[in-house]
């Protein structure tokens, strides 16, 4: 039985961004694109093809599922929801990135000339 980490780590940038966007709540496809553009301040732009290509993989892997339709908005669009496995995969990826950043900082400090 594969764990979420076995299936996904290290996550591709697109997968990481989609999981991050869905960590804030259920979103439809275009909502994910807008949310990623918002918190990355426009530096990371997802196209529809990339979005659904990754969403399909994530749904097949059990990281994301279809959310029940939103009754209040009367939306016909499909919403997507992060699963517990998806949350675990995101948390583990964040831990991995933290270790990378920590290691990078140590090495950069070691390279820094004295007195700078």
């Amino acid at each position, binding site marked *: 039985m594969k764990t979420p980490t076995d299936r996904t780590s290290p996550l591709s940038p697109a997968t990481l961004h989609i999981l991050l966007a869905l960590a804030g709540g259920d979103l*439809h*496809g*275009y909502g994910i*694109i807008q949310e990623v553009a918002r918190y990355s301040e426009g530096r990371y*732009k997802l*196209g*529809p*093809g*990339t*979005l*659904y*290509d990754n*969403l*399909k993989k994530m749904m097949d892997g059990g990281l994301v599922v279809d959310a029940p339709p939103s009754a209040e908005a009367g939306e016909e*669009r*499909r919403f997507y929801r992060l699963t517990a496995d998806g949350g675990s995969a995101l948390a583990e990826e964040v831990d991995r990135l933290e270790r990378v950043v920590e290691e990078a900082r140590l090495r950069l400090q070691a390279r820094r000339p004295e007195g700078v």
Partner: protein
Amino acid sequence: MKTTGILRVAYRAIVRCHPADFRERFGEEMVWIFDEESGRGRAGRALADGVVSLVRQRTRGEEDFVAVAAGFGLLPAGLRTGPRRMVQGGFTVAILFAAALVLMGPRGGWWFNCQPAVPERPKPALYAPTRIEPLGGTLEARAGVQPVRHPTLYYRGMERVGWPCYQAAATRVR
């Protein structure tokens, strides 16, 4: 048809080329997002993204691909990675070529930024000459910048000749 309309047709064609299960699940949403992106002037980028997605979807599942191709007699059984990659590469090129054909449109205009050979003008209102008299001789019609000598009958009283897609100024040549 405007450029945006051509891109939309091309994008729909790309979506239709995706595997059936993917298309049925996400196709309409992809077109919806494409429309939203078009409204923000990002149609070209979304189109390119669709082509990349198509290639990814079509080249995923190498075993399935080879099994299907072998089933149609396109590949001998037991192929190794090299030939598989070649076939997949050929398949990808074929998809891109088909997408380029769609982008070219009926007159090959948008993709290669070509102008139509003959400027499109409103269809002429043909009128009946008051007097029709076949003269014989040669008609010189100016179509765009290319003069065309048209050996046909010329009818007195007709100063203009209607063509299917443009109206050429015609002068009689003795």
